[in-house]
């Protein structure tokens, strides 16, 4: 596959899109782990929801 004289523009475009999409995925996945960890710490310290159910309970 030849990208012609403007290959650098094409490759840079795809590279930037890949980098930003990857950043979004990692950011959201890291945030999820951080929130779960905080909830675990709070529940371990004896703080619970008024309903008595675990904050991580999703059923």
């Amino acid at each position: 596959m030849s990208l012609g004289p403007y290959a650098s523009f094409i490759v840079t475009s795809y590279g930037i899109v890949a980098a930003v999409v990857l950043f979004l995925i990692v950011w959201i996945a890291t945030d999820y782990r951080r929130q779960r960890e905080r909830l675990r710490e709070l529940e371990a310290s004896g703080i619970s929801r008024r309903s008595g159910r675990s904050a991580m309970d999703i059923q």
Partner: protein
Amino acid sequence: MMLIDLANPTRFLSLTARILPWLAAATAIMLLIGLYQSAAAPDDYQQGATVKIMFIHVPNAWLSMFVWGVMSVAALGTLVWRHPLADVAAKTAAPIGAAFTFLALVTGSLWGRPMWGTYWEWDARLTSMLILFLMYLGLIALWRAVEDPSRAARAAAVLTLVGAINLPIIKFSVDWWNTLHQPASVFRMGGPTLDRAFLIPLLVMALAFSLLFVTLHLAAMRNEILRRRVRALQMMQATRQQAA
């Protein structure tokens, strides 16, 4: 499942836990197919291989406006229907929409340099897209500036609805004003003007990026619900410590 059923955050979390793996897999598969088709697409007789930038530029540009549309519906949900998850949806969509808008601007600029001879031109389409990006940043800043989520939600909802005026301006800017940007070639009266060799990869990539948005948005909404539970528990902890 009715929309009202999803008003219960716990039920929403249960639903996302079930469907997120499937959505992520569908997104990855569609992206792979779209990238393969983009690579295999022929060169354009005028633009050469730079037409491949279209397959990432156009989906990002569409989504930049679509996400603001989603936020506008969520804003109505906050102000009119008072749906408990409406502001969660609006808040978490903003950074993702900002990212899509940023990518539309950057890839457009990188496409414009070889085709137009310039990275940037202060014409109606490019300027209105830049304004959209700045509005996303303004909304994100507003959410961060106001600590109480419910107060921030109302202010952000009003700003979002006012900002929605920019969407038809972006869409029709190429018809209303002289601009370097080409007119609509897919969603137009009389059907698409793109050849099938370009149209099919473009639509596959648009579907892939739409699935990516849905996946990321649901995951971010799940995080926001957990963040609010953390906040509620921290406030209970602070109250107990004060009482002790």
